[in-house]
């Protein structure tokens, strides 16, 4: 207690629990009032954050590389959409269905995928998403094919908050779900299970040597991340009220991974920051130059990979380290 009082201010701030999270929540609330006509875009940003968090659980904690998280995202989107149309239009029930669909697909494919490593694994994750897209395109009777799944009408959230035309409810709803997912992952990554995922990340050989069934643990992580990606997909379906086969697109998986690397892996908050920065650049740069904005992103990613390997979240600590050495 007394020791922490003698620390310099930045260090003391870093120890306040949930300070960064509270700050981000405040920013998210402010955005609602600052950009009242971009709520659709802002909601998309929040949903991407949920998706990127699911990838961080895999890559940042368990060391499982994937370029196919859109598979589970898309599965969640279609499941939630179909559920709303044919069964029950309650949003929260839809989220549960989306999570279940994402988890089921991840579990099923994970039983095969988690036997593979490295490049083989990455190729397989891409393949699964491509197969899903193919199925969504072909199964016109169920999915509406390339026209997409239409006619999703959601009931009010909790029976109270009607989805409105400008997306106000959608925004707060997505923000609440993001906060819940973040807290859940915070708990899970600090748990014994989370520690064992970090163990697999560091050394599968040592994990086996302490008696861990590494394959099973990887499958469990993949399924859990699949459930969270499924929630992200379900959110999209509910908020935009449309699901097209593009939910399985490779570019979505790849961009989500880039956002995560940009912000920093293995920290949860890094993914949030990565999405915010990527989407801000996308939004502003694309408005100025719709063709070349990717160069800006490319340069940023290169800069991060070469100069701040821990991602942008690690920038403050790094600068402090540099200044400390210079003094």
């Amino acid at each position: 207690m007394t020791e922490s009082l003698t620390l310099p201010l930045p260090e003391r701030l870093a120890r306040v629990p949930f300070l960064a999270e509270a700050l981000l929540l405040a920013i998210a609330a402010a955005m609602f009032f600052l950009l009242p006509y971009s709520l659709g875009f802002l909601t998309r940003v929040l949903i991407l954050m949920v998706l990127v968090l699911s990838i961080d659980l895999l890559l940042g904690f368990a060391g499982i590389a994937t370029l196919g998280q859109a598979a589970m995202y898309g599965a969640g989107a279609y499941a939630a959409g179909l559920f709303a149309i044919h069964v029950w239009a309650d949003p929260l029930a839809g989220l549960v269905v989306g999570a279940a669909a994402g988890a089921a697909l991840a579990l099923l494919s994970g039983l095969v995928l988690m036997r593979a490593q490295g490049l083989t694994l990455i190729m397989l994750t891409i393949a699964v998403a491509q197969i899903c897209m193919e199925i969504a395109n072909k199964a016109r009777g169920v999915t509406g094919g390339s026209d997409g799944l239409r006619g999703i009408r959601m009931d009010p959230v909790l029976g109270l908050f009607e989805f409105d035309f400008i997306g106000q409810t959608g925004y707060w709803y997505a923000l609440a779900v993001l906060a819940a997912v973040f807290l859940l992952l915070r708990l899970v990554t600090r748990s014994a299970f989370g520690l064992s995922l970090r163990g697999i990340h560091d050394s599968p050989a040592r994990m086996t040597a302490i008696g861990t069934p590494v394959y099973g643990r990887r499958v469990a992580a993949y399924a859990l991340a699949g459930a969270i990606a499924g929630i992200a997909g379900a959110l999209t379906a509910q908020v935009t009220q449309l699901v097209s086969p593009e939910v399985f697109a490779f570019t979505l998986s790849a961009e989500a991974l880039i956002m995560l690397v940009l912000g920093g892996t293995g920290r949860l908050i890094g993914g949030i920051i990565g999405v915010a920065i990527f989407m801000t650049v996308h939004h502003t740069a694309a408005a100025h130059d719709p063709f070349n904005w990717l160069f800006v992103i490319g340069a940023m990613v290169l800069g991060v990979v070469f100069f701040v390997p821990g991602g942008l979240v690690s920038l403050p600590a790094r600068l402090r380290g540099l200044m400390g050495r210079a003094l």
Partner: protein
Amino acid sequence: MQGLCVRGLNKSFGGLTVALDIDFDLPPGARKALIGPNGAGKSTFANLVTGILAPSSGTITFDGQDIGHLREAARVRRGIAKTFQITTLFRSMTVRENLRLPILQRDGRATGLWRRSDSDRGVEEEVTALLEQFRLAPLGDLPVSQLAYGQQRLVEMALTLALRPRVLILDEPAAGVPSSESPLIIEAIERLPQDLAVLIIEHDMDLVFRIARQIVVLVAGRILTEGSPAEISRDPKVRELYLGGAHV
């Protein structure tokens, strides 16, 4: 028969035979050393016993039960543990986390999803006791990658002991440890539970003679001879091997 029992074990990598008809017993309480020149197949033998490698032929039983079909992790859960010749730690974790994880796994609690991994008093006390045993207490909260190599060797051993194994195989535990710290290793080995079966692979003969009550000499994958330290040090074949060769 109690303990570990190996019969007719063979292993070759392509044309290279690294284990040839090995018969080997390690009853509870044993203190055996496995010595032999570089490349004799000592580490390979340890890998065969722990299930990291599959033998070409032969049987391995533990307390009379065949464990040859069990995977490595399953053998560890039965109580057969090994330290690595090449230090293999959880490099992004602190020293405490490196010790906490095997304890949680051993107790079957490494799948708990909600409680913080450091919230169990009993586990934390055990971690602290291990840290103190290896004089690592002040370093507990440092990333293990920041420790000196000798200290990392100590963590390697503490981590394996945290599993409370019934058979412990130490693959060159003192290699690379500065002589100022090697007494810690010896002390730790001497303080191991009496009924634990210990096999130590080591080039350092001082250490071998301090600890081993039985020595097995392996040359080119074959057991050359086996006996008490006194017998082995008198054995002309062994003398030739060690005094005649460059290696001591």
